[in-house]
């Protein structure tokens, strides 16, 4: 089993339409590095000069990584990483 990364709608053009991508990695950082290796187009959507864009949140099993160990948050196989950007319309 691998780590699952849930891809939000605005980034799916960069993942070939995939809503969920399997990656490998022991931390959030390693998992996202693997995501970018598989789908380089996601990079600029997610990061700006190496920093996570301020309107995108990363959750591991529904908990904000800022409450865990940020990008160093440990992951184990089978866990889900969700990328959640702010929703603007209304």
């Amino acid at each position, binding site marked *: 089993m691998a780590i699952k990364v849930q891809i939000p*709608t*605005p980034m799916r053009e960069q993942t070939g339409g995939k*809503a969920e991508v399997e990656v490998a990695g022991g931390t959030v950082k390693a998992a996202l590095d693997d995501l970018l290796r598989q789908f380089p187009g996601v990079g*600029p959507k997610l990061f*700006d000069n190496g920093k996570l*864009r*301020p*309107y995108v*949140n990363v*959750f591991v099993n*529904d*908990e*904000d990584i*800022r*409450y865990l160990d940020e990008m160093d948050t440990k992951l184990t196989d089978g866990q889900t990483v*969700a990328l*959640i*950007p*702010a*929703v*603007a*319309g*209304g």
Partner: protein
Amino acid sequence: MTDTNPLERYSRQMRFPGLGKAGQEKLLASRVTLCGCGALGTVLANVLARAGGGFIRVIDRDVVEPSNLQRQVLFDESDVANNLPKAEAAAVKLRAINSAITIEPIVADINRTNIEDLCSGADLILDGSDNFEIRYLINDVAIKHNKPWVYGGAVGSQGMCMTIIPGETPCLRCVFEAAPAPGETGTCETAGVLAPAVNIVASYQATEAIKLLSGNKQAVNRELISLDVWENTSKRMKVAPLAGRKGECPCCAKRNFEWLDGAHGTQTTTLCGRNAVQVSHRAKGKLDFAYLASVLKQSGEVSYNKFLLKFQLVENGDPYEFTVFEDGRAIIKGTSEPDKARTLYAKYVGH
């Protein structure tokens, strides 16, 4: 109505143990400022007016258009035909629904110069807007003046909402520190929107409003709700421990009200004699023209070079031409009204 008991109309919700007569009376004595009366806002106003929210100030800068009718539940074809401002059209419907409460329609562009006045006296601020500029302004005002507010957003089949209680929950900037730069996220014009997604988000928001206004703060949802009606997902994300983000949040921890102070957001300048308005955006970073063009080509003619992007569209028979620069600034031809230009900017370039 001919009821002898004015509370009879609320009997079904008063029978709900969480509310009761005491909760209903608090609701009737409450005051709400509703920022924006589009898709989210009409659902919010409809629910609150029926529930007996005693005073509802409804603010919106736009006029009812045919493309609103698919999801903006208070409007109909006659409002379009009569070219009515949304706030006024909503007030007519809301008063017909419940004549025992007070509706105050205000046709205005919410900005940093008027938002504190518009929210003064309110027990709660509701987000019925369609852009982050207004949401960050609401967040600043709410934290500054210690008022709760409820964020909601919807685009495509997705939606999100969160309740902010100053001093108790994280604020909007704890969770989303900065607004997406113009063009970086979809808007309802560029990505489309399904009415049920908006209805569900606004219904969550309205429930939170009823809890807060009836004295049931303990029942408030303190997590971020994120849902997608097409993909059948609904999550509650734990953000509660972020309150004040360990002393780092610029707004609720450091009390720097950057949007209210004008450090962020848009500014408009009417370009005399040109039937054009310049909308400036104080955003960091550069626009990605290739991406913005791919989004806008669904709505009109787009072309771009290294320096600028041109976008032409026809809306309700009126032609407009956008010239967008790399820093997010745009000159919008086809109007001399700053409010219209802001609306067009928020719709197509977005926040």
